[in-house]
């Protein structure tokens, strides 16, 4: 469905590095503070290339904050974030994409939404429309290409947000609770997209509270609690035998605050 090699335009030795076993994202000594209060503190964290990493934890654990820091939307108070071994720069951030909990849909047609993302990514205008229509057709939104994007249902809008993000063929796709307010059919449609993207080589980093979704999609889990990484472990082990007491409580359905 998504072929990152077709028109990404930035295939280089850096991309080659992403496909190996080396960490795609490395976080070191990361601290994020607001008004003297530390909201996130991560000594060391490596997110591997390939597959899907699920970030879980109770509200206020710092999941969305970590996503925003890794995507360059927020500056860290201290520490560093590296992508493919290099400090995170604007150019590297453009090789990532993010989908927010509430989809931000531009006030234009479905096709124009995708075209805008392609334009922002430097795709020449001659090939934008063709590429947008290809992506929309491949994801079942082709018959809605001319429709006003904001007239789509909530589920379709979130699907469009995912498709728009994937149209730019990112190396990393961050998703912040993308299906939290959607019906099962819409959740299924989005999970299919994420599986296809992951299979095509895009690294998926997903924040979710839904343990079922985490099991369906995740290869590994990053469990955060009170701004710290409590556990980073393969999905099966996280579900079957979590190491930390916090993760164990979370998995067993206890209220963790």
């Amino acid at each position, binding site marked *: 469905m998504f072929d990152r090699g077709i028109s990404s335009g930035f295939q280089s030795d850096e991309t080659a590095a992403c496909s190996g076993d080396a960490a795609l994202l490395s976080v070191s000594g990361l601290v994020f503070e607001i008004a003297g209060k530390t909201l996130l503190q991560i000594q060391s964290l490596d997110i591997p290339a390939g597959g899907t990493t699920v970030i879980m934890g109770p509200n206020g654990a710092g999941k969305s904050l970590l996503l925003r820091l890794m995507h360059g939307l927020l500056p860290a108070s201290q520490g560093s974030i590296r992508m493919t071994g290099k400090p995170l720069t604007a150019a590297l951030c453009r090789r990532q994409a993010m989908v927010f909990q509430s989809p931000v849909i531009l*006030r*234009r047609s479905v096709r124009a939404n995708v075209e805008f993302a392609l334009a922002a990514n430097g795709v020449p205008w001659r090939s934008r429309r063709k590429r947008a229509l290809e992506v929309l057709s491949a994801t079942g939104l082709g018959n809605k290409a001319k429709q006003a994007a*904001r*007239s789509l249902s909530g589920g379709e809008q979130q699907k469009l947000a995912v498709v728009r993000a994937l149209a730019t063929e990112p190396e990393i796709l961050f998703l912040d609770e993308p299906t939290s307010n959607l019906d099962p059919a819409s959740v299924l449609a989005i999970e299919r997209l994420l599986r296809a993207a992951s299979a095509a080589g895009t690294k998926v980093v997903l924040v979710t509270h839904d343990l079922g979704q985490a099991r369906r999609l995740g290869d590994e889990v990053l469990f955060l609690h009170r701004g710290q990484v409590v556990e980073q472990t393969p999905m099966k082990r996280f579900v079957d035998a979590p190491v930390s007491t916090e993760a164990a409580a979370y998995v067993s359905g206890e209220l963790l605050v």
Partner: protein
Amino acid sequence: MADFAGAFLQSLGLIFGGDAELWAIVAISLKVSLTAVAFACLIGMPIGAWIAVGRFRGRRGLIVAVNALMGLPPVVVGLVVYLMLSNSGPLGVLQLLYTPSAMILAQFILVTPIVAALTRQVVETLNDEYADQLRSLGVSRLRSVPALLWDGRFALTTAVLAGFGRAIAEVGAVMIVGGNINHVTRVMTTTIALETSKGNLSLALALGTILILMAFTVNAAVALLDSASRRVIHV
């Protein structure tokens, strides 16, 4: 009362009879005001959008200043433009005083802050919603301006129409810098003032009726655009 009724009936005759002088005045008014609004949009919209998305020292003060300039007294603007364009003024060499160009300049000064302030409000609201997504897509603040202006196009039409409403109904500035010269700089508002003082109520009433109809049309257009925007792009 009978005089007024008679004058009103005569004014309707002028309007529907296609009186050449009346419609020539309307044409000059539209030409001057539409040109002024067009220039005001060209300058005011980018300025408003820049203030909306920019993060710089003095931004708050600039917003207050632009908002305050929305209430510029037309006669003061007329006086300043007159002094600048008069023979002894810095722009006197252009010989623009008592020409439609001078009137366009005066109306441009009056309308630009209105367009800029309303654009700032529209774009800032939109930017609050879009900012993270645009940054995620790698769009810089400067490059986000055209996208924000385009996505706010229906709301911005209200700014344009508000500016036009101010320009077409303005009398003080155009009277001073235009001189109310027949067939050259005589517009609806200055004609109404002149003809009323002369006791020629029928022409004044005819122009007043057209002016009021324009005000209704502008407001109806705003309402229609609002509902159209909800229907077409689901704001």
